[in-house]
């Protein structure tokens, strides 16, 4: 499954260019969500564009898009920072909404909370201008070694 993404991952690792990962995922391209390593740390950025808005009065970015980008941040982290040979399958995700997100880029970082043989727990946090003031955080479970028919990228 997802041989193309794993191929891209190998290419990206060889060229040390993580941004290639997003190119293999149509939804990430459409949402302008891409990983970057410009600061040395693996981060995932969702570039602001008007169709992210969920509340035009505030204005604020749609909560669903924050959940989506935290999920992508967790996946990019697993692909890039762990020795992934297969594409992780998401089991579930819980998103906490901490602050309203304004019409600007959103950046997220992820870390593995617990790595099991089959199951991984990942924590991800998203912010805008100030990393100490996160707009949302999430914890998610992924199956990394399984033939189960769960959604996989």
């Amino acid at each position, binding site marked *: *499954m*997802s*041989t*193309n*993404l794993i191929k891209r991952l190998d290419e990206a690792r060889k060229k040390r260019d993580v941004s290639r990962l997003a190119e*293999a*995922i*149509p*939804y*990430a*391209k*459409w*949402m302008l969500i891409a990983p970057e390593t410009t600061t040395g740390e693996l981060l995932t950025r969702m570039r602001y564009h*008007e*169709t*992210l*808005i*969920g*509340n*035009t*009065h*505030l204005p604020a*970015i*749609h*909560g*669903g*898009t924050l*959940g*989506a*980008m935290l*999920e*992508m941040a967790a996946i990019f982290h697993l692909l890039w920072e762990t020795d992934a040979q297969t*594409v992780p399958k*998401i*089991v*579930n*995700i*819980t*998103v*906490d*909404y901490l602050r*309203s997100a304004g019409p600007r880029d959103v950046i997220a970082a992820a870390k593995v909370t617990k790595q099991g043989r089959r199951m991984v727990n990942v924590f991800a946090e998203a912010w805008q201008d100030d990393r100490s003031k996160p707009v949302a955080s999430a914890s998610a479970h992924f199956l990394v070694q399984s033939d189960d*028919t*769960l*959604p*996989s*990228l």
Partner: protein
Amino acid sequence: MPTPPLTTPEERVALFQQLFSDTIPHNKALGIKVLAVARGLASMRLDWRRELVGNPETGVLAGGPITAMLDSCCGMAVATLLREPKPFATLDLRIDYAKPADPKKPVIAEAECYRITRSVAFTRAFAHQGDPKDPVAAAAGTFMLGTKGEVTRSQLVSQELNK
């Protein structure tokens, strides 16, 4: 602003379509269609599109668009129960991805707001592709009521259902 009473389910769906999809840029971009609305209940549809796919080899939708629809659908269920108009926002949202969505088929969300207090509303939702007993995803969302900001037209909408 007084509006004439909505007498038919079609009129209600048209109003909710306008307030919860057409005027919300992200929902409009996803192409979300409101299917049904009643007090405490909301239903929406998301059509399959190439841009929303996570894995181009299988054509399976990414989790993101389903998450966004479930969030919106739970929010709409909350709006139908507000006794007085007030701004609200998602506090937390859990999504269980039960199985991959079949490619090229629409995904239907059905949400229920089963409890509402002065400060918090509790919701549950399922996403399926025709058989509600065979869901692709399940959601539990909690909403904080009386958050910052002005009351929007969509938060006034429960009054339409009382008529």
